[in-house]
């Protein structure tokens, strides 16, 4: 579904953040990415939907090379949902309008269809009565669940999560992880950067360890946590577990 070939990314100040990443993600997989701060996890994820333009390499999505200059990136992004650490709900819009903005403005659904769909999704995460509220009146956990719903309203084929629970108070982490688990069970292809090792173990089909701008180790959760190979991964796990 997504194939990454020799992906490099450097920023202006000449720091080489991604150094030739190769990876393949099949439909239905839940890829969990862990690694120390600054290792390039976010940059990798943001390259997948081209929020960051790779400096070198190719990304293929559903048989299309999306790093090609001629590809309409807005169209590609409609099929890739992204959930951010800081939720990024639109402050100026109600929850309902946050959810239906993209589907309606991109003329994928009529306003009625979009609203009906939004209510269904909101009910799924238990927040239907917040439809007319503004983001400011919600807790962090509620905001993040809404952010997930907003992405799902586009019927994406893959969902990218960048540390979705890192900005939350501890008591709200569970409700967001629960929604993500349900989403995983529904068969969604997911790529998740997180520090929640429990989630990685339980939900991941593969766990990746990134360090120094590359994927250092990749394995099933059982092997990854039970039998780590790379010394840097062993060290990392000894710190976080």
């Amino acid at each position: 579904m997504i194939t990454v070939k020799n992906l490099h990314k450097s920023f202006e100040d000449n720091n080489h953040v991604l150094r030739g990443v190769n990876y393949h993600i099949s439909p239905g997989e839940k890829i969990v990415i862990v690694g120390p701060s600054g290792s390039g996890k976010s940059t990798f994820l943001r390259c997948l939907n081209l929020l960051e333009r790779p400096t070198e390499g190719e990304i293929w999505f559903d048989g299309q090379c999306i790093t090609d200059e001629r590809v309409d990136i807005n169209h590609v992004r409609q099929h890739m949902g992204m959930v951010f650490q800081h939720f990024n709900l639109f402050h100026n819009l109600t929850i309902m309008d946050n959810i239906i903005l993209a589907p309606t403005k991109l003329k994928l659904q009529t306003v009625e269809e979009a609203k009906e769909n939004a209510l269904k999704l909101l009910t799924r995460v238990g927040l239907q009565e917040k439809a007319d509220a503004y983001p400011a009146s919600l807790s962090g956990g509620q905001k993040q669940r809404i952010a997930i719903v907003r992405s799902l309203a586009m019927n994406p084929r893959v969902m990218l999560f960048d540390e979705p629970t890192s900005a939350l108070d501890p008591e709200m982490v569970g409700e967001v992880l629960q929604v993500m688990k349900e989403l995983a069970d529904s068969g969604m292809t997911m790529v998740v950067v997180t520090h929640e090792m429990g989630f990685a173990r339980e939900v991941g089909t593969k766990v990746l360890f990134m360090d120094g701008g590359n994927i250092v180790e990749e394995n099933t959760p059982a092997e990854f946590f039970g039998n780590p190979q790379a010394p840097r991964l062993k060290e990392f796990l000894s710190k976080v577990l």
Partner: protein
Amino acid sequence: MDGLKLWLAEVGRKAYVAFIEQDRWKLYLKGLGITMEVAFFAAIIGIIIGTVLAFMKLSVKRNGKPSFLARIANAYIDIIRGTPSVLQLLIMWFIILSFCRNKILVACLSFGINSGAYVAEIVRAGILAVDKGQTEAGRSLGLSQFQTMRYIVIPQAFKNVLPPLGNEFIVLLKETAILGYVALDDLTRVANQITSRTYEAFMPLIGAALIYFVIIKILTILLNKMERRLRKSDNR
């Protein structure tokens, strides 16, 4: 006691000469009208020019360098900010628009062009102050750059921009006191003329100053009210 009475009588006479005699109060009112008219239309022109300049300034080439349009906007802002507004007004009146005999129009244009440079910075800052995450969320949903601006960034920037725009209007209102340089009878010039006609400076000048002060005080109060209301409805 007598001294006080004499003094009061003298003040009364001066006030009479400065404001009542020959219906002079009408001149102040007319002057104020010109001041407000020029400030108002200049503000509108300034907002239009400033908004266009702000977007020009924000445009970047694919490699992140400032675009050609951004360079033009920067040059415009540099020139306006680097020269006195009195000179700009004189240059407009005597050189660039010397064919145009409508002084008010020239004044509105001159002040509008001047104000545009400052409004550009206000609008640009207001847009940049919107969290980058808002744009990223919009783009990640597949919205275009334009749609993200239109539905997400600009509505939020609007709130950032209103209070400083109000301040800019107050500055503009006071700047129009130089209209006398092109022989427009604004409030300041009227006061000055009455001073030289009556050989009395105190009443006309202090009177005019008070009028500016009261109007700006009212504007400030309204502005603070609006700012408070914006903050209350700030859904962040």
